[in-house]
């Protein structure tokens, strides 16, 4: 296990390193001088030069990359050019909307998908199974931002149960959770559809295994065999998908934040793109990619811890 983990850790570090180079390289080829862009068309050349020096743009690419990456490692994401505040503070403010939203959506998705998948598998080819599978087909095909608009139309505009957008802050946690509820549902439902399908097919695979027949032969009812043996074993692939979904939910939140006018990482990144605040774009993208790579790494480790056969493949 230690050897496996060490192998995965090496590949994690290499992935992060290469990802950081890719992100830096892509952002740095952006046409147009950010300093000239910020100062407008009438700026004097010496003013632009001074700002370039202040922003560190007069250094070589390699120097700038190492400044950026060593800063990141120390938690210093640099200074936003438009907000004039540390990028780490900006991200720190916004992540307290994006992260809870992703976690909230993940919990909802799991709560919907588990019972639906288990029920469908246990009623295989029955009316319940067909209905749930039909619903998941729809769930997979629905664009989540459109679903979000429909939720706003029904629950915010017509029924007035929720606000149509905005975020009141965490001073009142209940109110904050309420304002994240519709966005979380919009994010969660399409994911729940995928997860329910995985849960169902994984469970059906397990129900065909010999150990289930053995369990039935020793006198367990179909329900006991399902809950005591099949569900536990079926969870392994499902957990992998849940891990992958978390990163998807975090990135997918970028769009949902637009629908609900939530001041999270998504809005930050769009504002920064239009303001040419490259250091913010760079850092937020790096943070998202870092999260995806870390989550995948942890899923791999958890998977190997549960299933010893995987370790030997390392």
């Amino acid at each position: 296990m230690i050897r496996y983990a060490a192998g995965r850790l090496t590949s994690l570090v290499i992935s992060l390193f290469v990802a950081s180079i890719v992100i830096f390289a892509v952002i740095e080829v952006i046409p147009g001088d950010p300093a000239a862009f910020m100062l407008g068309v009438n700026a004097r050349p010496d003013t632009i030069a001074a700002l370039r020096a202040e922003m560190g743009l007069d250094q070589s690419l390699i120097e700038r990359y190492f400044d950026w990456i060593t800063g990141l490692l120390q938690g210093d994401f640099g200074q936003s050019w438009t907000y004039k505040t540390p990028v780490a503070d900006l991200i720190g403010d916004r992540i307290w909307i994006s992260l809870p939203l992703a976690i909230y959506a993940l919990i909802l998705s799991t709560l919907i998908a588990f019972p639906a998948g288990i029920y469908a598998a246990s009623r295989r080819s029955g009316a319940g199974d067909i209905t749930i599978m039909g619903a998941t087909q729809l769930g997979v095909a629905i664009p989540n931002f459109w679903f979000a608009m429909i939720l706003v139309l029904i629950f915010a505009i017509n029924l007035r149960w929720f606000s149509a957008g905005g975020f009141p802050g965490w001073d009142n946690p209940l109110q904050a959770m309420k304002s994240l509820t519709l966005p979380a549902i919009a994010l969660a439902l399409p994911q729940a559809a995928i997860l329910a399908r995985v849960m169902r097919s994984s469970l059906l695979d397990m129900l065909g295994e010999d150990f289930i027949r053995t369990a039935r032969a020793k006198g367990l009812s179909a329900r006991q065999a399902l809950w005591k043996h099949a569900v536990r074993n079926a969870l392994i692939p499902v957990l992998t998908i849940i891990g992958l979904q978390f990163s998807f939910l975090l990135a997918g939140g970028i769009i949902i934040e637009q629908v609900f006018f939530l001041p999270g990482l998504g809005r930050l990144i769009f504002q920064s793109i239009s303001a040419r605040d490259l250091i913010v774009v760079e850092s937020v993208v790096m943070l998202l990619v870092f999260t995806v790579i870390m989550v995948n790494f942890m899923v791999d480790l958890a998977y190997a811890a549960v299933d010893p056969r995987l370790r030997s493949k390392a």
Partner: protein
Amino acid sequence: MNRNLIIGTTLTAVFITLAVWSFVWIPYDIESLDIANKLQTPNSAYLLGTDHFGRDILSMIMMGARTSIAVAFVAVGIGMALGIPLGLLAAARHGSLLDEVIMRGNDLVFAFPSLVIAILITAVFGASATNAIIAIGIFNIPVFARLTRGAALPLWERDFILAARVCGKSAARISVEHILPNITNLMIVQGTIQFSLGILAEAALSYIGLGAQPPTASWGRMLADAQTLVSIAPHTALVPGFAILLMVLGLNLMGDGLRDWLDPRIRVART
């Protein structure tokens, strides 16, 4: 033919027909504004109603179908054209440094959600349908590479490949002449699925302003325009939303149906 395949193919065919038809005829010109007829609910003159500029929504759906299908189709093409050869190469050189580099490269691209790739590309080159195609296409490459490698590896162990090697065929020739024909069905099914994901991705990118730009019609843009109108004219949001939903549903059903139809063994295993 199974039910999924029939329903899926019909739905897909409807949208493809609408898109192709739009080259010849659309009910109303969508580039001229007709404020006098704005926000009409569906009626006999405007079958799906009009938007806030008085443009006919049916005409916009037809033109939008063209954009969606073109973007998703080319993006799948990019994914297949680069991903399949990479996967074949990795499988042919299984266990080598090249295989390792290709697979780790795949993992790396997977670490960038398609939306993040799109944001990066847009930040550099600006928003356009072409950049949406590139972003979705890049995301498709590792999907096909990984699938191809996974399907090709067990084939390399088979006797008919051994026979081909004994005949003196090169790895490249075996990949093209023997491996590729055996994984074509799998690629068609995955192509259909990626096509549907491409439609969703295009809509999402256009919705946040990173995809097709006006005056190019796009379902995602129609939804973005409808966002502030949803309370007074719900049809402006409902129609494009259902168009996306039905097109994606059709492609997914077609993918499922094709999988069963092309490989009876899967059908037995699945039921």
